[in-house]
Every structure is written in C-alpha cells, then in structure tokens.
C-alpha cells in the first residue's frame, strides 16, 4: 500500500510534498505542504484503487524546541477497501499560519479541526465555524501546547461572576 501511495504522490502531486523522510512507524507517513492538503486528501479519497475514504483521526503535535516548524497536523486515513490499511499524512506548520480546512472533503473533520483550534490555537481556513468546542468561550491560552502551565494561569477569571455570593439572595 505504501508504494502505491508513493507512486500517486510522486506522479500527480509531487509539488505538494514537503519532504521525504523515513519515520520508524508501522504506519506509512508522508509529509505534505499545508497548501496541498485538500487536493492530496481529495485524490487519496477519490482514487479508485486506494480509496482512502475514512478519516480515522485528525490531531496535532507540538514539537516545541525539537522541530522546525513547531506544529504538525496529523491526518490518519484508512482504506476499508484495502484490508483497512492506514496511512498518516503530516502537515508541518508554524504558529499563526492558517491551514486549509478539509471539511469540503471529509465532513467529519469539522469537530476535530475545532478541537485543534481550541487546544493548540491553530486556525483552519474555510472552516464553517471556527470557535472553541470544549473550553469556555472566555478561556485564555491553549492547554495542549507544551509551554502552557498544567495548573493554568490562575483560572478564577473563568468563574469570577460566581465567586461573589450575595447574602440577600
């Protein structure tokens, strides 16, 4: 399966390859430029042989101080037609850089992309509703970043309206 995907990427989509690097993993991993993620995912989904038409997971990694650029968006795709084989697409991005949303290809990417926005602070372009999904709307910071303190910055601002109780009530 790895060779077939490699051939497809190298022939039709070679301009979107970020780098070729061997990753020690049982899942074949490909590094894609951020502007190419929508056409690459679309091609893998539509290809009659490969048929990677199931988005298993969509998440991100913060490589603070270990890699440049700092963040990686990970797309785990599955092909139920080909013995459920899986591939991983990784998109390295820097902070503040917009990533094209793949909601137009996989509708199920809607909430995972919002989750990444919520917890990592990476924004997706052309997303139907780029708001926080889990944390309160007035939350400050992005907790899954490596430089976020575990206990937060002192979270009482979140319930400051509750901390004063009126005796007359």
């Amino acid at each position, binding site marked *: 399966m790895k060779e077939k995907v490699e051939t497809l990427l190298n022939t039709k989509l070679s301009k979107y390859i970020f780098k070729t690097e061997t990753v020690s993993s049982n899942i074949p991993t490909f590094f894609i430029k951020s502007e190419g993620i929508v056409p690459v995912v679309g091609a893998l989904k539509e290809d009659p042989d490969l048929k990677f038409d199931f988005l298993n997971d969509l998440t991100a990694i913060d490589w603070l101080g270990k890699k440049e650029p700092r963040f990686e968006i990970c797309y785990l795709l599955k092909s139920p037609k080909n013995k459920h084989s899986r591939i991983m697409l990784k998109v390295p991005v820097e902070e503040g850089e917009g990533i094209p949303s793949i909601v137009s290809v996989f509708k199920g990417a809607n909430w995972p992309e919002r989750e990444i926005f919520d917890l990592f602070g990476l924004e997706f372009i052309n997303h139907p509703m780029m708001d926080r999904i889990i944390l309160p709307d007035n939350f400050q910071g992005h907790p899954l970043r490596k430089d976020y303190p575990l206990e937060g910055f002192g979270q*009482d*601002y979140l319930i400051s309206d509750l*901390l004063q*109780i*009126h005796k007359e009530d």
Partner: protein
Amino acid sequence: MGLTDVLSKPGQALGDMVQVTNLDAVVNWGQSYSLWPYPFATACCGIEFMGTACSDNDIARFGAERPSFSPRQADMILVLGTITYKMAPVLREIYDQLSEPKYVISVGACASSGGMFDTYGVVQGIDRFLPVDIYIPGCPPRPEAIMDALLKLQQKVKTQGLENRRQEIKRKIEEINERNRPLIIK
C-alpha cells in the same frame, strides 16, 4: 397547671394523645426525615450514589428515598464528582434554584478539593462558590460513608434551628467572599 409545667414534662401531663413542643422542633424533625436529594453526578461518585440508593444499602431507610431531578423539589444537593470551570455556572444555577431550606453535601475528593486533578480545567473544591454543609472523604466514598453523611446532616437539621441555620449560611457566604477577594484576576 401552667404552660411551663406542661413543657417540663413532655408526653406525660396530657397522656399519649397530646405532645407539647415548639414549632422549630416539629419543623426540623419533619425535615430531617424527608431530605430529598438532588444528585448532581458528574463522575464516579455518582455510581456510588446509585449503589447507596439501590436496595442493598437503601438510602430510603433514612427518608432520602426519592432522588429529585427537579431542583425545586429537593432539600439537599449532593455534588458527586469533579466540577470543571465550565460546569461551575451550571452547578451554581441549580443551587440557586433549590428551594429553602437547602443543604449541600460535597461527596468525594474531587468535589471537596479538586482531588488529584490539580489542572487548568478543574475547580479546586466547590466550597469556592457554594456554602457546603458536609464533606465526605474518599475516592470514591463507600455507600456507608454517604449514609453516615446523611445521618450527620439529619442530626444537624434536628438540632440547629431555623435562625441558627440562617446565621450559619450568612457566615459561610461572608467567609467565601472574603477568601475569594484577592484571588480574582481580571
């Protein structure tokens, strides 16, 4: 025979037919055996409460048999589990909807102190914004501990009196406000 004589010998002067007491004691006696709980279950302590309410342990023996899922018909709120900052306004609103007299039992380590979750999302104890009456230790507490807390609350309801209760709530609210004042970051 004056009223003081009657009061000094309850149950004797007029036979078994009439008992003389004061209104406070009757009201408190009635309340203490009909403490309907509102289970605010957000984590595993809620499962322990289910065990407490079911037939093996049977909290109904103590008059708390009907878990009320409307806060307006409940007398005490059992906070069972981790309270996050996002859940805190919900809990507070439900507490405000409970009809007086209302009591708060904080069940387990998470509700009482945040437990092992000393993180950005978890309130470090519901006594930050609610006047708590009884704390139950444990992670999660056994059903016996929950029933023990209920017995202690019954004792409190029976002996405290309405005016003392009012004063206690006032004092607790003042304490909460005082403790929180320097912590609010704008």
